[in-house]
């Protein structure tokens, strides 16, 4: 059951042009930094990326955008990236914006083996255009389909050789959902330990969902909005 691969380049080596990828993270928090760097090195193109955000100009998915590797983004919020805006306005990049809870739950549905969900988010808005609406107990809901992704790429805090994963704080976000949803799931972790060392009660993603795992390195963990208060003496 050993899922360990040597590094990011080996983990992503079969990702092909035109693949549909899920990338975990919220803003720059909990993003798979090592795999993104490896994807940029590999230069794989025409990717569809399902990710809540699109990084910033010089970090996260922004690096792949700058390298013209992304054909389409499926996201809920993309406001932090000038290169993204440029490619969108010039028509180089396709963008599908969907509500954040819908994005999360479409990943969840894929990981739970359910083809679709019903959600009230977007009823009466342009998000609902062309979608089936069902009324339950007097309230309208949109039919939204589970995502299909060739690869899910996630970042965890700790992982073991069986692929069990534990996330830290709000770096959890979309990671466990996407981990469940990929045909192939790749996990990079800050601390890789032998199976048996993690408390089974504390596992967030059971190893069955994870196909490849490796110990990441040189995490930059950039902060988007550094907000602090002053210490009072």
């Amino acid at each position: 059951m050993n899922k360990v691969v040597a590094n990011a380049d080996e983990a992503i080596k079969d990702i092909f042009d035109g693949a549909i990828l899920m990338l975990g993270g919220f803003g720059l928090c909990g993003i798979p930094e090592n795999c993104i760097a490896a994807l940029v090195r590999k230069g794989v193109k025409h990717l569809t990326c399902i990710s809540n955000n699109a990084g910033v100009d010089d970090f996260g998915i922004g690096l792949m955008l700058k390298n013209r590797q992304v054909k389409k983004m499926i996201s809920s919020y993309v406001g932090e990236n000038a290169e993204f805006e440029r490619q969108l306005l010039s028509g180089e990049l396709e963008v599908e914006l969907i509500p954040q809870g819908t994005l999360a739950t479409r990943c969840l549905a894929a990981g739970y083996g359910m083809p679709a969900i019903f959600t009230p988010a977007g009823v009466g808005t342009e998000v609902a255009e062309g979608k089936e609406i069902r009324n339950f107990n007097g309230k309208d809901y949109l039919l939204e389909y589970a995502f299909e992704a060739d690869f899910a790429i996630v970042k965890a805090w700790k992982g073991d050789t069986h692929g069990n994963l534990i996330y830290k704080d709000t770096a959890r976000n979309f990671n466990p959902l996407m981990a469940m949803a990929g045909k192939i799931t790749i996990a990079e972790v800050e601390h890789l330990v032998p199976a048996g060392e993690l408390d089974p009660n504390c596992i967030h993603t059971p190893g069955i969902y994870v196909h490849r795992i490796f110990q990441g390195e040189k995490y930059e963990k950039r902060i988007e909005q550094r907000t602090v208060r002053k210490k009072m003496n």
Partner: protein
Amino acid sequence: MALTKEQIAQRIARELKDGYYVNLGIGIPTLVANYIPEGMDVILQSENGLLGMGPFPFEGEEDPDLINAGKQTITTIPGSSFFDSAMSFGMIRAGKVDLTVLGAMEVSEKGDIANWKIPGKMVKGMGGAMDLVASARYIIVAMLHTNPKGESKLLPECTLPLTGVRCVKKVVTDLAVLDIHPDGGFILRERAPGVSTDEIKAKTAGKLIIEGDIPEMEI
């Protein structure tokens, strides 16, 4: 005098009740956290996966793994919990969050809200706003009464793409506190100190309902 953004937040904080779970949007709503009455038990939900959001960290104690939905570094309070984004919107969809406060570009007299897109300009996306407004039980909008051109943001119908329909219950602006009438219309409840009913009338394009004397806000 029109209220400052801080005073709008202060007025909204008076809607909080002991035991409330509250989601605060980006902008003026975030400021509401600064005015939670002392001794009142209110737990803040951040939709990126946290219940029990605390204040900003002290300088040097920022943790890149601990941010709020506005991507700001934050802390947790004792008794907080982390969860994934599906559970976060699960608790929102299931109506567990008592109060949602968010900003808006337009609100209609029927309680429709528009706050995510200006066609032809940059589209940043709806984030979690559509999920929140579709399910929250009590939605307060915090915004200025007029846009930078001086045009009313309280309209008969929204002109911008909608975020949600018939969902807003209360609007707190720099000029007034207004409730949405179930059959349509902004019911004027309170005036900002020194702001006349006539001024509010002039700056409200949607149907304004005025019954009796309108008291000034207590700030």
